[in-house]
């Protein structure tokens, strides 16, 4: 078979491989979108968790102030001052401080997990942004060019014909095709593996946080109560209007207007989730905290769904690619053997290499 016909056969194999691996392009855009969603969610979770820990740190101080204000509201000023300054009061109020610190540290540990989650998505985003195919193709192309030049120089130094320009071009194109296809397949595999690893970790995180929901929600409920109690005391003492922070802790859509008492009693919708006595001393903080925390965990479940969708949408049959890759490797091997035989034949055919007749002596 002539060299040109062999080159045509090689081109056909290349075309066939291109068609078969047409879908083998890494979904970098999908990966980038997923990474961005993950980064936003992780940041929001960390900020919320940090906030809960910081607020919990304040509850003892708030309790002290609201207690003393309550005491003074029910006693004459002199008695209030005496009681507030007593050793018994100090001992009673300081007992709680020792309990607060370990809870704050445990809550902050959860924030660190969310910070680590953010770093996973940062790495995922970097992978999605990496032009694996482009970089490897460029590197291989430049090497192929260099290798071709070396082959020519070596052949010339040996006295053999250098490789033809068309052969060099075909070799370079083939090498780049292999590199691009391999880079794509490798990146698909990396994105798939990254996705799977992150998905597993997220599912474990979701399960772990759900297992401790009642404790986290209790802590957040205590924060709401402590803060609301202080607000009520301040209002009683005439320091301000209805506590705006109470509104901030209600489920979405519920608000407490300024003229709270009458409105709340008259409006069943506002009473749902909030049940205040005449003095507005407290409300259903723990239930609201549970609801809010459930919503927090919902954002993790949304990420899990996004990862599962990415997995389903980007399935790639590596076994099929391996078959094509094998065929191409065989084709390259056959081509290399043929070129080596041709080069050897060229060298042997050179006049200077032909066997010289022996001289006869007279």
């Amino acid at each position, binding site marked *: 078979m002539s060299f040109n016909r062999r080159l045509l056969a090689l081109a056909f194999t290349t075309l066939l491989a291109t068609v078969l691996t047409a879908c083998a392009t890494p979904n970098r855009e999908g990966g980038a979108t997923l990474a961005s969603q993950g980064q936003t969610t992780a940041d929001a979770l960390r900020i919320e968790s940090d906030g809960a820990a910081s607020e919990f740190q304040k509850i003892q101080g708030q309790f002290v102030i609201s207690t003393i204000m309550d005491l003074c509201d029910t006693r004459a000023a002199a008695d209030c001052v005496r009681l507030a300054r007593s050793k018994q009061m100090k001992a009673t109020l300081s007992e*709680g401080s020792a309990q607060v610190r370990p809870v704050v540290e445990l809550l902050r540990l959860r924030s660190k997990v969310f910070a680590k989650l953010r770093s996973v998505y940062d790495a995922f985003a970097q992978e999605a942004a990496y032009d694996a195919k482009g970089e490897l193709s460029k590197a291989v192309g430049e090497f192929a060019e260099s290798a071709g030049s070396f082959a020519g120089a070596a052949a010339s130094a040996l006295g053999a014909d250098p490789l033809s320009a068309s052969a060099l071009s075909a070799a370079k194109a083939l090498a780049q095709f292999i590199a691009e296809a391999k880079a794509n397949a490798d990146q698909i595999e990396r994105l798939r593996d990254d996705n799977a690893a992150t998905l597993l970790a997220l599912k*474990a995180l979701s399960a772990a946080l759900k297992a401790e929901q009642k404790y986290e929600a*209790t802590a957040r409920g205590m924060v709401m109560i402590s803060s609301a109690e202080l607000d009520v005391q301040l209002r009683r003492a005439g320091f301000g209007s209805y506590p705006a922070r109470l509104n901030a802790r209600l489920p979405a859509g519920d608000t407490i207007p300024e003229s709270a008492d009458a409105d709340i009693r008259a409006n069943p919708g506002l009473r749902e989730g909030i*049940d205040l006595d005449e003095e507005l001393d407290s409300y259903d903080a723990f239930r609201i905290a549970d609801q809010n925390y459930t919503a927090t965990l919902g954002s993790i479940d949304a990420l899990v769904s996004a990862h599962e969708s990415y997995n389903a949408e980007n399935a790639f049959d590596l076994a099929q690619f391996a078959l094509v890759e094998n065929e191409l490797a065989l084709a390259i091997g056959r081509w290399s053997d043929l070129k080596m035989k041709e080069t050897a034949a060229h060298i042997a055919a050179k006049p200077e290499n032909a066997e010289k007749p022996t001289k006869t002596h007279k």
Partner: protein
Amino acid sequence: MAKQTTSTGDERQEELRRNYLQAIENRHGDLADAKSDDEAFAVLDNITKAGNALMKSIKEGLEGNAPAIETVFKDLKSANDLVETGRKNAEKLASLFGKMKTATDSATGLATALEKAAKAGKTPKAAKTNS
């Protein structure tokens, strides 16, 4: 009296929450009703005990779940390392071809130099033989 409703948690946790909430809600009225310092401190002790019990349960609950959280932390670190290592290996491969190009460029230079040296060496001998 306020109504307490909670959506999650075991019975113990709910009981602790209820105790604390009731102690806080009743504080104002109970302090107003306290006829002596001792009675006033009893009201405050009641709230403090309820609060401390609740904080203790939070601490124990979170500590108990700490191994699960630590495992998640390690899983996330592994996922992070996997992502970064994979891409760095890809970058190394591209870099390797760059190094190979440098090597072949040098080899080309050497082959060319050898060829020139060989030609320079042959010419005088060929001239002598043909004269």
